[in-house]
């Protein structure tokens, strides 16, 4: 991976003083993750370019590094883009190799370090998760002219499309320390990955390096959230201090992140869905309820808050989701009387489960669309034949409504794990058949604002025995 910094501020070779690196020599530093070489491809009074060549050791990356594995373990693989791209490794290298320059200190040219000069930085290559538009939204507000050259994933397989990598050139007239601090913070933000664990220190670092530009950045939530790797608590703390006002609503941050991935940006839809399911459960007079596929516990929270529900069981197939639910509901610290009302179980809707028998009602919220259609028969047996709660509330997306989501490409489903999404007719046909076979009466209710043509975004069926 290569970073070059060029200036035309004359005498351009003063760049060597600013960086504390002699243009006449190749200088190599041993870093924990590999080697950093600094050399000057060009060093004339008119124009001077410093190059930082970062050699990330691909074997040490897998074998020696103690740090997070990255999303899906991407940081711990031999076939890895890390040796070739700008990432948090570059930030570390900048801090170690150009630390004084980033701090605005220059032994020989202190005034120059304080002076905005024409600078041009080129990164080969920068992973831009979010593409060129995001690249511009991130760098242009801090004063850069952005040039980006993209690459295909593989020239021999054109249909594979574009790679997420760009050779990026940033031009501005600014202090060298500004440029380095921007790179330090924003390169990992574009990359969305970090090779070390994020702790409280990271908040301090961000506040220090971003003090004079981050509070006014229009994308500050996204930058903070990505920089801190979506750690809600840290992100909230950082934002509070950054803009010096209370951020009460943790959802603000979550929304910033989810907006990148989920077309259902209408936050109220989620709430309306919870409300509708809750109403259906309450209306049926249920006291002992199941939340099948409870995930991280979105529905469990309001259930727990309502004393009508005396026994609440949240079941999910993902242990990880259950752990998060446990934490979110603060189950460990709940007073005993409260804690007795709720139980979390790992289980599966593909296997008959005696623990699920004898409940008044079950919610199956946004679950069926995650099952392969041939497996629905097993689901029907497990829920309607064996668990057999008095009431079953099922919600699922209405595919007809998808045209109303501006960010959802035509023909795409709302989530990549959705195996299907049904039209209203398809859902009703399914639910009516299940109702007839299993001796349940079925009624249907829309969830979310109903469109005259395509209906409501979510559809809900309430089965009663």
């Amino acid at each position, binding site marked *: 991976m290569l970073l070059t910094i060029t200036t035309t501020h004359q005498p351009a070779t003063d760049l060597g003083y600013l960086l504390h690196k002699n243009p006449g020599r190749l200088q190599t530093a041993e870093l924990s993750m590999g080697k950093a070489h600094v050399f000057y*491809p060009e060093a004339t009074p008119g124009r001077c370019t410093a190059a930082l060549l970062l050699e990330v050791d691909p074997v040490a990356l897998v074998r020696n590094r103690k740090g997070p594995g990255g999303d899906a373990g991407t940081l711990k693989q031999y076939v890895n883009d890390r040796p070739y791209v700008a990432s948090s490794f570059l930030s570390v290298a900048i801090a170690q190799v150009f630390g004084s320059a980033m701090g605005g200190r220059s032994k020989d040219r202190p005034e120059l370090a304080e002076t905005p000069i024409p600078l041009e930085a080129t990164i080969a290559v920068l992973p831009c998760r979010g593409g060129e538009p995001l690249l511009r939204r991130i760098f242009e507000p801090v004063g850069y002219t952005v040039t980006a050259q993209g690459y295909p994933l593989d020239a021999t397989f054109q249909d594979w499309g574009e790679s997420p990598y760009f050779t990026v050139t940033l031009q501005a007239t600014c202090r060298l320390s500004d440029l380095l601090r921007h790179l330090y913070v924003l390169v990992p933000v574009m990359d969305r990955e970090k090779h070390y664990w994020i702790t409280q220190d990271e908040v301090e670092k961000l506040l220090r390096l971003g003090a004079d530009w981050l509070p006014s950045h229009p994308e500050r939530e996204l930058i903070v959230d990505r920089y801190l790797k979506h750690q809600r608590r840290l992100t909230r703390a950082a934002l509070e201090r950054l803009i010096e006002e209370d951020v009460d609503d943790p959802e603000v941050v979550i929304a910033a992140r989810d907006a990148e991935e989920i077309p259902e940006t209408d936050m109220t839809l989620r709430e309306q869905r919870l409300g509708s399911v809750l109403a259906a459960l309450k209306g049926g007079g249920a006291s002992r309820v199941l939340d099948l596929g409870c995930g991280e516990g979105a529905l469990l929270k309001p259930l727990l808050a309502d004393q009508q529900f005396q026994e609440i069981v949240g079941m999910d197939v993902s242990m990880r989701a259950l752990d998060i639910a446990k934490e979110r509901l603060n189950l460990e610290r709940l007073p005993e009387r409260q804690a007795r009302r709720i139980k979390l179980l790992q289980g599966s809707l593909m296997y008959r489960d005696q623990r699920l028998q004898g409940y008044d009602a079950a919610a199956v919220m946004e679950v069926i669309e995650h099952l392969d259609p041939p497996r629905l028969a097993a689901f029907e047996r497990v829920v309607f034949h064996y668990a057999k709660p008095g009431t079953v509330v099922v919600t699922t997306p209405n595919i007809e409504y998808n045209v109303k989501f501006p960010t959802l490409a035509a023909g795409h489903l709302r989530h990549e794990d959705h195996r299907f999404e049904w039209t209203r007719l398809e859902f009703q046909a399914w639910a009516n058949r299940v109702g007839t076979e299993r001796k349940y009466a079925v009624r249907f209710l829309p969830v979310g604002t109903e469109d005259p043509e395509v209906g409501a975004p979510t559809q809900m069926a309430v089965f009663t025995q």
Partner: protein
Amino acid sequence: MTIEIPELALVILIGPSGSGKSTFARKHFKPTEIITSDLCRALVADDENAQDATAAAFEVLHLIASKRLEGGRLTVIDATNVQPESRKSLVELAKKYYCLVVGIVFDVPERVMIDRNKQRTDRIVRQDVIHRQRDQMRRSQRFLKREGFRYVFTLESEEAVNAAIVERKPLWVNRRDQHGPFDIIGDIHGCLDELCSLLGTLGYDVAVEAEGLQGPQYHVTPPPGRKLIFLGDLVDRGPNTPGVLRLVMSAVASGAALCVPGNHEQKLVRALQGRNVQVTHGLAESLGQLSEQPSGFKERAAEFLDRLISHYVLDDGKLVVAHAGLRQEMQGRASGRVRDFALYGETTGETDEFGLPVRYNWAAEYRGRATVVYGHTPVPEPAWVNNTINVDTGCVFGGRLTALRYPERELVSVAAARTYYEPAKPFLPEGDQAPTTSGPGDYEDLLELTDVIGKRIVQTRLFRNVTVPEENATAALEVMSRFAIDPHWLIYLPPTMSPSETSTEPGLLEHPAQAFAYYRKQGIPKVVCEEKHMGSRAVVIICKDEQAAQKRFRVTGGIGSIYTRTGRPFFADRAVEADLLQRVHAAVDRAGWWEELHTDWICLDCELMPWSAKAQDLLRNQYAAVGSAATAALAAVQGALDQTSAIVDVGDLLAKNRLRVEAVSGYLDAYRRYCWPVESVRDLRLAPFHLLATEGAVHIDKDHAWHMEKVAELCTPDGDVLMRTAFKVVDVTDPASEQEGTRWWEEVTSRGGEGMVVKPLEFVAHAAKGIVQPAVKCRGREYLRIIYGPEYTLPENLDRLRARGLGLKRSLAMREFALGIESLERFVRHEPLHRVHECAFAVLALESEPVDPRL
């Protein structure tokens, strides 16, 4: 006095302190069979006499007793038990576990007890207490039978206590020593002609002696060694109940048959004994026919029927016969509730549209190891559900009379001559008198969560017990539930494969020499080298037709399945799967395998290419992405270094960058070779390499050369979708043969092949310490760039990569291999779904074990 005790019973000793219970218990029972209240007091309170700990002590006593009874162990309660209420909870406990209750009453003179108490050093029980206890005992003594005691023995003197002998008797239901082979016949209902005809088909000789005063006499002679079992409901509805009874009674008397009672016998007996019963459901026919019999027959029949035992446990516990079936926890036990279940089954309390009680589907939940054969409810076609089978095919209703041959598990039946009795509910599909096939019908074999979660130990034939840790099962549950195909198809998951030990050759990580050496060291002289295709592992199940798929796999709509090594559907697009299955089907047709292998289904282990067909996301997000980033970045570095070299000496960096550029270019070539666009099935390549199993056979008794030659029959020379795999047999004791193998590997890898898989020639090869690795892979230098990264060949990288541990990988490969074969064998033996699924699930669970994924 001889005290006869059933081998499984709750024995309650009853007597005041000092009546000699403990001494008696120690004399006649194993120490572990006796639970004393004193010991329980001591366990909870450190003091045998702690009266304030009595409640807690009895809780412990009950808990121990319940665990023992649940486990089917005789248990003796040594406490005073003089009050009815203290006995009541014990009797209830015994009932809960379907055990008989035996009472032994120590009614010795009060003087003896008082004297004995005085001699005690540990504690003194007051005289008035003993008096009160004796009083309580004597007052309630005569009601013991009413309290639920089956047998009561009273010892009225010290001498009687001393002289008593305890004998243990096997339960009537226990016939474990009878091993058959058996022919088990379902509900006959007076259909004598069909019975005789069926017995003839089964090879029994039935002789009828001319009618004398006593009526006809039947003599049944079985084929050598075989024995009949009648499942009850011999009587009612049909044309000749007396004839059937005569035949069965004679066969039982001569030892040619066993018979268990059905609900119809129970009612007939009551009617014959003169009780008031409703004459419905065909009872009238029996009573009418019996009244015409010579005198004395009715009485003999009633006696015979009254003495029938509720069910039998046979063949070392491997077979259970009962009229209406039997839950696992009731098998081999004797109680009223067991008898009721065996005769009537279990109902849900609801009635169906024909007014008949809805039966609780106990078989769906059955997880016992014993095969249960039963009748009671007519079904159009017997079907195995969790190791149980109902063989009542409604002969009297115009269906068939069916026998199950055990242990062969063959069904033999004869059609009814006519409909003798109209059923309340039609049990045959309309317009179909005697069906030969049936749809999925009413059986239920949904898997149960407890079949898979928690720590599990799976017994395998090849490699003893395989343990699945709980956390692995947890991980597998998620994968199985979210991504796997219908578990009915999942009869096999392939094992992981270890590479050969690391090579010491310069520039190479892997080389055939190590693979050959491995097998040689294990004492295996011959190995087979198979070209390794770089695609994705695919298990293909193909059935002769949809009916076969439905019958054998219980999956409707489809003639097979293609799934990945983690049990996921290979193709998201079902049409592509169907298309490819059609091609495999056509190939099997051409090869004539259906007839040759006597099968209507086949399970093949294959590699499916191109790699890009399955690994599209991986290729784009990882392989191509890395290639693209590397190419662009290294080009920029090259430019900068070139420019710099005019000013400063960066020769070393330049040289290194050139190496890196070369490596990346090799890497691009390596993965691109395994990618090609797939527009239709024609662009796919399927290379089968194991013919794993067909009906009745898991083909691991044939060597790999047989497998390679056999599967080649499917592959036509014109290079259609099915592709032949090149292979070579190498003698690892002959250096020339080894060299030839190595040369072949070099040739394969130099033209871009992935490498080869080396297997022992035998499918399952044994060494001194058990089975050996089923396969070891040797991958080519260029191919390994895909595994170890583009620049792995740089000397500083390669040297570090040589250190790699194969131990865990090899151990996993072995366990997964054993599990895979086990699941196939269980499937081929027609074991229940949960038994097959257990193995497939275990493979998936073991795969969640963190192992270096590069191996």
